[in-house]
């Protein structure tokens, strides 16, 4: 019946698939990772960068749980910047330009060195079921492969359709075939599905660009790694270049708008509002007279340059006209044109919080198939799907992170509770407990969890123990050290003390920075990372705000602990409107807290729900007694 068999099959070797396969193999389950092209594992389809605001948080969290994206990005990174440092450390986020070829290479090596993991090149055309339970997959070459769980990470390949001006053709990425057979079989599974759209800009040949008028953007002098485990020095090997469009360019775009498939009605899929095409920007922000463009090298061994900000589906001749009108790009040669791509996604309300589908046991989805966008969002879901598929096979309860645990928990909760109508991207503003979800404490929040599920190996665990110790000792040092008020640091700054303060009291002053105190020897410490110092200081300076947040977290956890049985019969409850019963039945929230987050659910219906839950619980207790 089956030609081969694995515990877990992962379909697709993009950023979601790599994390999923690595996680399940690392946990100890035999895992097959299927890709249509084994040379393009972990391909960065769009911009040559990992991380960014909120996305950098996701990468840190993936790393803290035992995932590999952070390690790969550190190794393949060619320019590192910590973003948002003018604000508090809760919203600092690392970003790195990556060498695209290098990233593929590093990721493939990491996968190949993972025991139990087998890379397979083949096209998957169908998922096989028995009694609503996944049993395996079928390949285009006719082989059938058994699996107890299947993780589907199809990216833009599922019925992918590329648009460049008036031209349309099926493709998964430009130059690669789409998954049409698998796409059609997924459409027939009975899930609520739809179309989304994303776009990518043209790539240029570095030798044909005049960089002289551009503003240069360099990496940080002290690069911040994504991974707590990275020990090798990080190197800034390239610069990026900033320039702007102008009104003349906007006019070229306006004059050709009728040739854009976005505006001619050929594209039905919804695109991301925060990553609009240049034609969208020109139409929707009419009075903005310039738009920022960043030229980002695709690697150190290539001339190819990514034109960030110029994502477009306009015809190639218009793309050329736009470029030739831009200072410095007048004679730029295009390596690849920009294009838009539409693809199938499944409404993520079809999923449980474990990322397993509600309708088919053993089938997990991760990445763009769930309506998200971004490498980091995909990788984070891949990791969770890989962990939960493994736990499912091992007959253990799933790992569910809540909104106070991690950005990953927020993303999954948003997706499965609210669904999405546009490609979903992570933002720090989605995090109601943002102050606690910092990059500097990702390991404190998540590494013990990763250890528990078997993903954090001994070496990684030791790194965690060592770092925790360093921070703890720094804290103790601060709490027990007496301040030398006659130190030159204070005298030179004219800081006068009426009485000798504790270090904690000293740090509460807005004009005193711990980093400076350490640098100038007011307090002696062992070597600690800059972000650890500042995180510790922040926890002292803004203690009140953090406490406010902790109280809110407690409220959330109480509401999360009010569980709703999966078979709860909403229709039989008096007082709920039909619309609300329909919503609750479709989403099947796990807790009162989740129910409260479903759009359109009123406070009164939450009270009614709570009331009935209590009554039902008491009835059960009474029945059990008698």
């Amino acid at each position: 019946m089956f030609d081969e068999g694995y515990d877990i099959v992962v379909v697709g070797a993009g950023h979601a698939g790599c994390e999923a396969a690595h996680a399940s193999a690392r946990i100890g389950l035999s895992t097959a990772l299927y890709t249509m092209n084994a040379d393009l594992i972990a391909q960065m389809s769009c911009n040559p960068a990992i991380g960014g605001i909120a996305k950098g948080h996701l990468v840190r969290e993936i790393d803290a749980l035992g995932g590999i994206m952070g390690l790969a990005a550190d190794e393949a990174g060619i320019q590192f910047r910590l973003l948002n440092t003018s604000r508090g450390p809760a919203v600092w986020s690392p970003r790195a330009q990556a060498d695209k070829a290098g990233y593929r290479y590093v990721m493939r090596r990491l996968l190949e060195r993972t025991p139990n993991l087998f890379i397979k090149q083949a096209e998957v055309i169908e998922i096989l079921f028995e009694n609503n339970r996944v049993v395996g997959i079928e390949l285009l070459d006719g082989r059938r492969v058994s699996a107890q769980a299947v993780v589907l990470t199809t990216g833009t390949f599922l019925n992918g359709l590329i648009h460049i001006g008036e031209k349309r053709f099926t493709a998964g990425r430009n130059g690669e075939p789409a998954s049409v057979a698998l796409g059609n079989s997924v459409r027939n599974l009975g899930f609520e599905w739809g179309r989304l759209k994303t776009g990518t800009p043209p790539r240029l040949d570095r030798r044909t660009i005049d960089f002289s008028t551009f503003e240069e953007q360099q990496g940080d002098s002290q690069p911040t790694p994504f991974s707590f485990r990275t020990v090798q020095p990080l190197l800034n090997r390239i610069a990026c270049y900033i320039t702007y469009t102008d009104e003349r360019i906007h006019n070229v775009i306006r004059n050709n708008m009728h040739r854009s498939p976005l505006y001619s009605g050929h594209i039905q899929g919804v695109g991301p509002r925060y990553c609009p095409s240049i034609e969208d920007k020109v139409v929707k922000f009419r009075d903005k007279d310039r738009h920022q463009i960043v030229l980002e090298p695709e690697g150190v061994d290539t001339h190819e340059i990514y034109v960030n900000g110029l994502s477009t589906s306009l015809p190639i001749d218009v793309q050329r006209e736009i470029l030739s009108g831009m200072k410095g790009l007048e004679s730029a040669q295009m390596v690849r044109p920009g294009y838009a791509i539409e693809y199938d996604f499944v409404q993520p309300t079809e999923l449980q919080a474990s990322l397993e589908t509600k309708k088919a046991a053993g089938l997990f989805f991760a990445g763009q198939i769930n309506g998200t966008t971004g490498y980091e969002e995909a990788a984070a879901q891949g990791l969770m799907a890989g962990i939960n598929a493994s736990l499912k096979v091992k007959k253990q309860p799933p790992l569910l992170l809540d909104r106070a645990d991690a950005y990953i928990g927020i993303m999954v909760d948003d997706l499965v509770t609210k669904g999405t109508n546009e490609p979903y991207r992570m933002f720090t503003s989605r995090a109601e407990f943002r102050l606690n979800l910092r990059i500097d404490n990702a390991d404190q929040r998540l590494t013990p969890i990763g250890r528990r599920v078997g993903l954090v190996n001994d070496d990684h665990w030791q790194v965690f123990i060592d770092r925790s110790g360093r921070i703890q000792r720094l804290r103790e040092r601060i709490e027990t050290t007496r301040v030398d008020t006659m130190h030159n640091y204070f005298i030179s700054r004219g800081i006068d003390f009426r009485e000798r303060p504790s270090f904690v009291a000293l740090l509460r002053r807005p004009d005193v920075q711990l980093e400076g105190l350490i640098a100038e020897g007011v307090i002696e410490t062992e070597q600690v990372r800059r972000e650890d110092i500042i995180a510790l200081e922040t926890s002292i300076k803004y203690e009140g705000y953090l406490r406010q947040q902790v109280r809110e977290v407690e409220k959330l956890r109480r509401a999360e602990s009010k569980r709703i049985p999966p078979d709860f019969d909403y229709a039989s409850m008096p007082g709920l409107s039909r619309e609300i019963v329909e919503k609750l039945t479709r989403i099947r929230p796990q807790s009162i807290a989740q129910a409260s987050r479903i759009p359109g659910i009123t406070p009164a219906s939450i009270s009614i729900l709570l009331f009935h839950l209590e009554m039902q619980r008491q009835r059960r207790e009474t029945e059990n007694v008698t």
Partner: protein
Amino acid sequence: MREGLHKIVPTDDTIIAISTPPGHSGIGIIRISGPGAVPINQRFFKARGPLTELSPRVAVVGKWSDIAGEDIDQVVVTFFRKPSSYTGEDVIEISAHGNPFSMNRIVETVCSAGARVANPGEFTLRAVVHGKLDLLQAEAVREFVDAQTDLQARTALRQLEGSVSKRVEPVKQKLVEIIAHLEAGIDFAEDDVDVPSNASAARDIHSIEGMLDSLQRTFGYGKILAKGLKLVILGKPNVGKSSLFNRLVAADRAIVTEVPGTTRDVLTETISIDGVPVRFADTAGMHETADPVERIGVTRSLETLVDSDFGLVVLDGSSPLDASDWTVLGKASRIPHLIVINKTDLPQSIELDGLNGSRRVPVSAKTGHGFDELQESLRAFVVAQKSDLVDDSILTSARQFDTVTKILQSLGRARESLESQVPHEMVLLDLYDALAATGDLTGEVVTEDILSKIFSTFCIGK
């Protein structure tokens, strides 16, 4: 985003409700349930007999006071110890006189000590949560569901009528705008977006505070109970405003001299008339002046006037009306006022023809002549204001007032944080609290508004 949690009614705090139907009645019953019930009782209830521990199920006669320690009403208090109460929590039952005004003052006092006004059916919900209603479950379900449905209907109605909701909407919009700008600065620091300076964000918040302040003053209930009535004393220099003020508040606060124009600032003093705090504002005389210091005082007088509920126009009975007097009378016509003719101890040469129909009271601030009548007139005015409150919207009004107060507190904290350069992600905590609370007033729950606002305001995405 912060949707969700605030839809869940907590079941572990202290709630209060008036259990008897609205309007005047012989006896009104107020119930407090939750962990704060006993401490609150201890703080505000003074038993008539010797102070002893509360005994469960024993009715005790005494007085209920407000925060200032002033008695509100004579009441009978009965304590039900948990779990032997209706809700299964500690319950204090207060039987008061069925006067809506004093009952609401009791509610307000208790709320200021940390309790909150209960939602419909909430006592029943707690009874269920604490396993108290097993025998009466069927009935309880019906009652509870009715109460919730009623709540929904009324929220919907309120939205339709939209009185408060309509006025809060611009506040909410403005707040969403401020939050969106601060959030855009955080989430799209890499993009080409303009982030407002701390000073301009603080200014925007200040303008919202102004909008809410005036909204708050329109709530009859809140206006009178929490803020009290504002009474302004007006008149040209040296007609004896300060002497009148001093005699009325029976304290020596204003400087009184024979030189006109010594009261350059606005002095205030609060007294209680019929249980209502009345804040007197004494003002600098209103007349054209070149003295810059005095001019500031005069400008303030005008501001105070616009802000007041009621005025006393003071005229000097010993001299004829002049242009300054008419100016004052003209300005005073914007608000209800009494005309006080001072200096009856001197020969009278004022001619009263041409004065408007406002009530006139002749007094002598020097001798105290006529002050009984003046005080009686003030009392009549206060009572007239109170009578507006005796309807069943009073509790809604109390809840709204509380909510606006909370929003104002959050906004104040956020503004101060901005002014002291606290990072925006922390300032936003208070702004989100304020935004969530506006949902309580508009009856709608804020969801993805912020991101949508960001995307419609800024061109995001390189």
